């Protein structure tokens, strides 16, 4: 039972990070129909720069966190404003490869700037844990869940109650109509990338918390989040977020129980299980569980 509860908690904490990543994806996708394959690298960038600010520049953690989030947000924003903007209207292949190009560049810039070795994320929680009822819960994981929920609620409020949120939602529904009523599409897109960057940084810093560390492979986590987002629905932030939490829990539980009960599947199964599920679902519903087929014109 202890094992189950521990794994479940770890899964929820991991799921919180996936939910943040999912939010980053859907914000960009909903406003501009772009899937940001560089989300993982933005996450890594945020984690590395925050860690560097704390460990080398000796800034207090919260200041470093804020600066790191802004820096990552700016990277995302800059990519949209200086690169992606010129690819408006291009075929999907071009858009996909552009974000992959960003990912490739970031994946080599990070070790060049920060070095390749794993390091602590510099947070203030360290290794402290809450012990209750025979279980141990790392404070950093508790705060991951709290922060993720706060960010998600905050974004929900932003989307529903502010002008920009409204603008983003309209751009998602019909870009041409939005333009027609005077919504500054370029600014909307740039804002969505800014938000995606900031949210990635938050996810990255928490992901690198104890007992994990910040290392270049931290970017791989985003690619594990993909299936969740697809299943939840690229169109629906709440669906994607739920998908994120589900995948996190499923991953921890699979990682914990599968090698013992079904050893024949090997030890890597938890990596591909979400993809297998996603592929099976897509065979039946090619636009995701909640997506709809776009009308095609000749």
């Amino acid at each position, binding site marked *: 039972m202890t094992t189950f509860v521990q*794994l479940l908690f770890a899964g929820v904490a991991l799921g919180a990070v996936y939910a943040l990543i999912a939010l980053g994806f859907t914000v960009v996708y909903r406003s501009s129909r772009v899937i940001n394959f560089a989300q993982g690298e933005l996450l890594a960038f945020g984690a590395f720069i925050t860690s560097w600010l704390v460990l080398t520049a000796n800034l207090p953690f919260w200041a470093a966190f804020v600066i790191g989030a802004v820096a990552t947000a700016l990277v995302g924003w800059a990519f949209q404003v200086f690169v992606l903007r010129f690819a408006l209207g291009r075929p999907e292949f071009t858009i996909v490869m552009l974000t992959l190009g960003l990912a490739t560049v970031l994946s080599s810039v990070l*070790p060049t700037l920060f070095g390749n*070795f794993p390091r*602590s994320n510099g947070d203030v929680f360290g*290794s402290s844990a809450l012990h209750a009822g025979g279980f141990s819960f790392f404070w950093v994981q508790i705060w991951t869940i709290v922060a993720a929920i706060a960010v998600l609620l905050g974004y929900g409020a932003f989307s529903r109650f502010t002008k920009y949120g409204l603008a983003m939602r309209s751009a998602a529904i019909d870009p041409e109509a939005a333009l027609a009523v005077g919504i500054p599409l370029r600014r909307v897109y740039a804002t969505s990338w800014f938000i995606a960057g900031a949210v990635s940084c938050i996810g990255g810093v928490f992901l690198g918390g104890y*007992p*994990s560390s910040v290392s270049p492979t931290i970017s791989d986590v985003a690619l594990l989040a993909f299936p969740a987002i697809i299943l939840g629905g690229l169109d629906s932030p709440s669906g994607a977020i739920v998908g994120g939490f589900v995948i996190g829990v499923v991953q921890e539980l699979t*990682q914990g129980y599968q090698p013992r009960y079904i050893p024949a599947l090997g030890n*890597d199964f938890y990596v591909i299980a979400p993809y297998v599920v996603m592929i099976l679902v897509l065979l039946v519903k090619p636009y995701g569980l909640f997506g709809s087929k776009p009308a095609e014109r000749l």
Partner: protein
Amino acid sequence: MRRRRITTGVVLCAAALVLAACSTSTGGGATTTSGSGTSATTMTTGPGVDTSTKTITLGVITPLTGPAALIGKPLTAGQQAYFDYVNAHGGIDGWKIKLDIMDDAYDPQKHVQDYNSMVGSVAFIAQSLGSPTTAAIESQAKANSVLLGTAAQSSAFVNESDNLVIGTPYAIDMANALDYITQGLGQKNAKFALVYQNDDYGADGMKGYKAAEAAYHFKSVAEVPYNVTDTSFTSQATALKSSGAQWVMVTAIPTAAATLIGTAAALKYFPHWVLQGPAWSEYLMTSTGVASGKPTPIEKAMVGAWVLGFEAAWGDTSVPGMSQFLSITKQYEPHQIPDGYYMYGYCLAEAEAKVIAKAISEHNLSRAGIVNAKEHLGTVDFGGLIPTATYTPANGPGDRQTDIGQVDLTSPGFLKIIKPYFESTVAQSMTFAAG
């Protein structure tokens, strides 16, 4: 137009034919490469041996970038420092040693490319770091009798004539440690567990573990694998905790070991941790690897863990070779922090210098001559920095001794030797198949 097109074609063909006259063998087109043959002083030479400047060029293929750079950089520095010292003191019988260093980022493909690029111009490879990378060039090296200074403790290479391996294989370290715990400390009835990486390295640890289990019949309650890509060790930590293991042997890499131990500590599970050499790094303790750096979150949980190895404690002047080692380091690598891989590289260079000296004394610096020198090297004394090794045509591990260090905040490199070199009966009887 037509005339122009034909002219283009003819010109290109002619140019190609002229250039082709440069060489009649493929891959012979460019600069480098010293010839082979016999010089006037009846010294048989081979590639990489320049009799006019009396320089021997050796190749180094090592990760200088990427996560494995943590190992590659200091190891290479150790080799370079020793050879710098040798060159400054008359060389080896007047021959100077030059290192040609290439980065492979621990990628087998790059390793092969680097090997291909340098093999024609070096006498032998002074450093081929890593098991999968060395395996990638093994068959070619064997076919061309190129000696490989192999910086990898996996068992696959110890039985090969063309691999020069110093130090003790992982499997033997594991067996020695279990011997000490069950026999030496009388812990025969305790519960043991093994955490191992899901690859050849882990398989080596498992080999030693199983050999000891067969000999001493201790109770093994868990054998838990993990993948290099795993970031969460909750499942492994909970599995170990519920098994009730009191001694946990860890065949892992530093990040994995650290995450595992940290997770276990949070679960209030504190067994005796016994780490194999590669699972340890001084960077697990502080951000800079020395006491003045910022402590890492798992620093406290690591204190008291055992680390298996075959090296002397840095700075232990009771060891005969230590003072020369320290003074050479001070002179040629003054910024080097206490690091086991640096010491390893230094010792590897020492062994290689002896191979070269023997080859020179037999007037045979050809490829085959160098491999022959290694096979007949006999005993090599490293002044206690690592155990004395023996190399014979029968091959096998150079030595079978292990020492045990304990993580301690006040010692240099954070390790304090608690059990000096020893060799168990189990280890003596272990055999290794050719790779």
